[in-house]
């Protein structure tokens, strides 16, 4: 089973801390891979401007690497920073890894004064175009291209990958770090199938299988939004549903829970906004998940969240204190990330809960589906 860990703190920290939590949770999983998402970036050797989008990925050969750099130049992106990992290549299982990259760019002049929507659309188009530069021999893998977000995915034991990329050296720090510890061994090994998944600043990771994957994927693909693509993993749809909820429907984060695991008709009949929520359930029927899943996510404003499937068939715990919080699929993961907290205040959400860690990180918001829905139009 997958192991998940998320840490969010006011003070940037090394992703290695989260890897140690993965190590603590090692019992019961196969350590077949690692996916990392860092948000709120700080580089040791560069004063990073959080408006610069960071391109994260792997060029598997030198030709592929050239293709990426040339393409970015041609598209008008100005390279501001190129992070070089101190590598210990012997620790990497795969042998076709020419270059791991985290590169910060200044956007082309035409986009400098544009709205966030237009800039984000351009970043998405660029990311998808870069993904398409791949071919049989010269592979390119692109994880994310977005301001203040970096991603790393690799096959192998999490700690081993952390050591291979020397993540303990303090070169990279972030305020939010999400880690998932398993390649998608249910299917063929594919770096794109590794959690967390990312689209336009929104990211989620999940443990468990998504049994309703195919109908959900078919519906999302039918929306004809270019970012709704990939689907090497059944869990990628969780990210895209969150994106659809927030960016396309422009609903608040709480609506996510009402979309993926809506209340049943009897519960809706008693809900203060039952009529609206019943309508929402109906129009978003194809996005209902069945689990078993715990979905852990983070948003561009550094909000972090955790929701369970409708039957709470997977575990997950959140704990921490003012300024620093951790979410993990196993309690020992939270212990490893924040040992100096009051564990009696840890919270394990039930089926109706959405746990939200707001950007100020002062306290948790535990929101129940039975609570009134925070939206004026629902009133």
């Amino acid at each position, binding site marked *: 089973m997958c192991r998940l860990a998320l840490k969010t703190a006011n003070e940037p920290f090394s992703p290695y801390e989260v890897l140690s939590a993965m190590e603590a949770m090692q019992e019961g999983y196969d350590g077949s891979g690692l996916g990392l998402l860092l948000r709120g970036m700080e580089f040791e050797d560069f004063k990073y401007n959080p408006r610069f989008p960071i391109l994260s990925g792997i060029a598997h050969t030198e030709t592929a690497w050239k293709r990426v750099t040339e393409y970015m130049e041609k598209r008008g992106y100005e390279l501001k920073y190129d992070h070089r990992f101190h590598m210990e290549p012997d620790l990497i299982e795969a042998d076709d890894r020419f270059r791991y990259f985290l590169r910060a760019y200044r956007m082309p002049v035409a986009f400098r004064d544009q709205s966030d929507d237009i800039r984000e659309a351009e970043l998405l188009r660029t990311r998808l175009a870069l993904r398409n530069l791949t071919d049989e021999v010269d592979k390119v893998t692109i994880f994310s291209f977005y301001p203040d977000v970096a991603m790393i995915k690799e096959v192998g034991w999490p700690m081993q990958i952390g050591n291979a990329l020397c993540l303990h050296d303090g070169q990279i720090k972030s305020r939010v770090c999400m880690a998932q510890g398993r390649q998608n061994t249910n299917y063929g090994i594919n770096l794109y199938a590794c959690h967390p998944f990312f689209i336009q600043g929104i990211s989620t990771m999940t443990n468990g*299988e998504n049994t309703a994957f195919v109908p959900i994927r078919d*519906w999302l693909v039918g929306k004809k939004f270019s970012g709704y693509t990939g689907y090497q993993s059944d869990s990628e749809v969780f990210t895209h549903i969150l994106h*659809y909820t927030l960016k396309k*429907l422009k609903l608040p984060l709480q609506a996510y829970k009402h979309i993926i695991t809506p209340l049943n008709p009897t519960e809706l009949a008693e809900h203060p906004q039952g009529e609206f929520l019943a309508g929402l359930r*109906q*129009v978003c029927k194809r996005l209902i*998940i069945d689990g078993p899943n715990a979905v852990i996510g983070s948003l561009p404003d550094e909000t972090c969240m955790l929701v369970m499937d*409708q039957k709470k068939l997977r575990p997950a715990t959140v704990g921490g204190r003012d300024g620093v919080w951790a979410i993990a699929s196993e309690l020992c993961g939270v212990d490893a990330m924040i040992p100096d907290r009051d564990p009696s205040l840890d919270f394990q959400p039930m089926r109706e809960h959405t746990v939200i860690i707001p950007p100020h990180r002062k306290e948790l918001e535990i929101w129940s589906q039975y609570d009134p829905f925070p939206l004026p139009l629902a009133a």
Partner: protein
Amino acid sequence: MVSVRSVSITPSSLTPADLPWIIEHREDRCTLCGRCTAVCPKGAIRLAHMRQRVPKLDVFNKNRGNDYRTFTGIRQETDPAKLCIGCGMCSMVCPNEAIAPVPGTNENRTAFFQNQKGEPMKRGGRRNTTGPTLLDRIMFNRISMLTDPALDAGRHEFTTTTTLGRILSPEDFLDRTLNGGWIPPSREVFPFIIGSMSFGALSPNMWLGLLQGVAYCNEVLGIPVVMGTGEGGCPPWVLRSPYLKYIILQIASGYFGWDEIIRAIPEMQCDPAAIEIKYGQGAKPGDGGLLMWYKVSKLIARLRGVPEGVDLPSPPVHQTLYSIEESVMKMIQTLSTAFQHKVPIYPKISASTSAKSVLNNLVRNPYAGGLMIDGIDGGTGAAYNVSMDATGHPIASCVRDCYLDLAAQGKQNEIPIFAAGGIGKNGNVAQNGMAMIMLGASGVHIGKYIMQAAAGCLGNEKNRCNVCNLGICPKGITSQNAKLYRRLDPDKVAERVGDVFMSINTEVKKIMAPLGRSQSLPIGMSDAISIPDKDAADRLQIRYVC
């Protein structure tokens, strides 16, 4: 040898061995009570007086001679008009197990003569093909094993309803909620709908039993079953009752019964579940309703607004039908307006290679609440045999094509597709229905299965019984003759309707649980099904297994 001319032989002469059903009668058990001949709906058997030779030996006088005795026994008619239909009512009423029909194993010679007076064979029932259907062969095999836990059909909470009616896109829904626009009406119903069987085709007792059963399912069992009326209106007391909400009213090319319905609108206590506009049906595509004069009783005449005892053939198409863009849209819109846009309106068509075009037109019609597609295996009360057996399109690939077309447009949640035609043909109703749902249907209509399961209809695909068109239904299901329909106890039918839907509901959960699905009906979950037939798998775009 006797001269051939002295025996009555015509081109249509048959012997009992030529018949599709042969009556086996044991004279040693028969008490000559006469119940079998009285109950036989076709007059296929008769009491006959026969003479038997008895050898007469006068041993002492060394004389050999003959004596004769007469006796009374049962004989089978060979006249094509009186062929045994294998219904087995004779056997059912015989106190002594003395009589039963058995299928003739010889060639079906009668097929050549069922066109007496130039009238081709007409019957009720459905396509006479036997053996497992394509739907029977579909298996559910994306089983949750170890990577995710299977659910518990008995203990977990399941949602097994589907939506009938148009659904907006999420964007439009939010926009209209904010700005006060019209949200199309929809109903959450059980995905197994009792298909449209008209009040003329079914007997009053059958109809009453079904309605009682449906009300029980809704109000006691909590299973939101709805039923269609078919063409021919609805009893006035139902129109003005709170049970109307369980009824899908049908308007078809004869418009029978709509005078009564329109007049009842101001007095309706609730809205009907939906309105179905029938443009075609699977059993007899391109043909209209066919209620024969002997089924047009006083009650039926009143409901349909016609004189008693006249044939009521509906035209094959609506007289107003000029083009789909214009007439269908107008008809849907008009009916929607008549019910103040509070009732879903959807068309029913025969499965056809042109179904996708109809669907694409409906997608652009904001008032269309769905599409019902009826396949070649659909049943009917009366049709020409050739229509039933050879005209139409199988349902599975037709619905699959339509669903994939909708999915390509991202509209699969907006226009629900309902499927009918052969669902439960061999009794596997939940399995067949769920296979259709995973191929992309939002629900299925079942008619023949309900008649068989809830009322004991004797018809089958070996052409047993299948005389619904003649009004002589031996079980009283499709007869307007009070002597016949009094055989059917509406309470017993209602009880069976409850049994059937409770059992389907459990089987649906038993299918969903191992797939790890419970929160919503697995519509279009094509990764969960497969079939041991490569060609069918390729055609339906599902997995082939062997």
